[in-house]
């Protein structure tokens, strides 16, 4: 048996990313959704780490370590705290689509992702860009989650998943955007999640629950 090659490891990480996204669509308990998001963060961090080992690039390894800390540790922890402070009802209560229909939609979106991302693979057919369709699938699934889920926290989870998908595209196509942009973008996401955390607290304080269906006073 030969040890897994660089291409295998990249494909494995990209597959893990996609699998976690499917899991988030499948599960309805907020707590397990947050756990899956943490695993997705690990799969995302694997991309720059594998790339860094392959190219013997210490900077990429450091970025990988940073991604583990932020997307597997800090961000899911912040979301988990918001879930923990919720009342008894910790499930996605009123999904627009049931689980079967959701999973079927995910299958369709994944096929679409392969079609959409073809130009990227064509431009530079390497092992890394061949995994880009999986990252695009995560992006489409994240948007799908934000559309069909009604709980405020599920939307925050969808937003973070969208961000994971975009970061994966960045790592797979160009081994990450320039460091200064990467740092700034991570900081922005961190602040956005902090704000969402504070807001879910305030929503719960005023409405008793964080069902977005109740946020419909403002309309024309």
């Amino acid at each position, binding site marked *: 048996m030969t040890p897994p090659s660089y291409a295998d490891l990249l494909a494995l990480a990209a597959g893990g990313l996609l699998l976690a996204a499917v899991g988030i669509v499948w599960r309805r308990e907020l707590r397990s959704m947050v756990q899956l998001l943490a695993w997705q963060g690990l799969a995302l961090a694997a991309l720059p780490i594998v790339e860094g080992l392959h190219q013997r690039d210490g900077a990429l390894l450091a970025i990988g370590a940073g991604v583990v800390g932020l997307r597997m540790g800090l961000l899911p922890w912040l979301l988990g705290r918001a879930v923990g402070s919720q009342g008894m009802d910790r499930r996605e209560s009123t999904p627009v689509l049931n689980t079967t229909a959701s999973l079927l939609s995910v299958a369709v979106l994944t096929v679409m992702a392969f079609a*959409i991302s073809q*130009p*990227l693979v*064509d*431009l*530079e057919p390497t092992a890394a860009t061949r995994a880009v369709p999986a990252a695009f699938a995560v*992006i489409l699934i994240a*948007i799908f989650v*934000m559309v069909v889920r009604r709980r*405020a926290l599920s*939307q*925050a989870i969808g*937003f973070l998943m*969208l*961000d994971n998908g*975009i970061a994966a*595209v*960045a790592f797979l*196509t*160009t081994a990450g*955007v*320039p460091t*200064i*942009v990467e740092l*700034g*973008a991570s*900081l*922005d996401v961190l*602040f*956005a999640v902090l*704000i*969402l955390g504070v*807001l879910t607290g*305030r*929503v719960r304080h*005023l*409405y008793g629950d964080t069902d*977005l269906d109740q*946020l*419909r*006073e*403002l309309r*024309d």
Partner: protein
Amino acid sequence: MTTLLLLPVLAPSVAAALTALLGWRPVTAWGIVLAAACELACGIILGVRGVSHPYLGPGHLLRADALSVTMLIVVGSVGVLTSWASIGYLATELDRGHTTAGGATQYGALFATFLAAVTLAVLANNLGIVWVAIEATTVATAFLVGHRRTRAALEATWKYVIICSTGISLAFLGTVLLYFASRHAGGGASALDFDVLLANAGGLDPAVTRMAAGLLLIGYGAKAGLVPFHTWLADAHSQAPAPVSGLMSGVLLAVAFASLLRVKAIVDIALGPGFLRHGLLVVGLLTLLVSSGLLVVQRDLKRMLAYSSMENMGIIAIAAAAGTQLAIAALLLHVLAHGIAKSVLFICSGQLQAAHDSTAIEEFTGIVTRSRLLGTSFAVGVFVLLGFPPFAMFASELSIARGLVDAHLAWALGLALLPMLVAFAALAHNASRILLGPADPQSRQIALPATIRGALTAGVLASVALGVSAQPLTHLFRTAATLLGGDG
């Protein structure tokens, strides 16, 4: 030159830090006004010195060219008006117990942080840093929108953060794809710098650039209040404190759109002018249609002003689609005139809200007789928006129309005229009632705080001056238009 580039970013950052440390007090409040005035001064000095050739600042991080100088003047003038008015606005809010000393400090610090972030977005020479700065404006304004802490304010904040962050994420994906294409075209590590992107634009892979351009259009369009991610706009503008609404309307939307103009200059070289032209036309016309429809049924003053901003962004998008030198120069004049007039109107709406504890249009009648300055300012602001001569929007809208005809887009002009007429009628109807309608005999005179009087007077004078003679700025606007690929 480098000082003039660094000062506009540093001044509001220092003002934000001072406010956070010392709290909201006269010295810090005036510090923010001073920081905004400093931005305006830097913009004017840079404009007078001439920026026919782009100047790259420290480490190629910042750039001064005709577009960034124009936007710096927009940020500075709107910043001065709204930060000046904030002093009187917060004094009233504190008096009535709507906010606390801590709330006022938060307001001041976030306001100045927003100014710093938006200035960085204007001056940055790197598409990635522009993105970081624009997303930072979302972060800075989130708690400003929710400053009143009511249920409605909370709902508006939630929608604002989720919709804007998601929309702008798509712009980040577009940035990543453009970086990929630019690296492939030989851009190297600085492949996201505007000068490098422009130099390599001819070699960008068309298929990948097409995806990137579409995503950037939708993403920055979300922040600019363009369809389809426009739904946050009216909610956030109606719930935010009045000076913040003015700042968002005059600065945030315009700066997001200016980033799109930079992207357009690159994409036009890579794909030809057709691709983004069609995208901008579709998005612009739809934005006009949606906003004019909602203007007609509007019963809330601040939402009405918000939809009017959206309508103007639609006009600006169509002007950008025309892409001639005349149309782009007119677009920049339109942005400046709209920014100043909208700040004046939002500051007025804040005073009306304070006097009536409501923003329903039906509550406000005959304000000319109740406060001459408030009535005059409101009238001038509305005249600018309606495009009456001699105000600047008369000239800019005419020039945009001519630009569309020159670009063989007369059909788009025809399609745009109908919603513009509807919006005109709706705005004129509501404004004439608010200004001249019979005043309720029980309604009292409206007393304005000194800082509000100062800001309104300055805004009105600036609007008149810009209308009577935009001559000193014409050269700047034309240089910017040439820079952005405007021909003819």
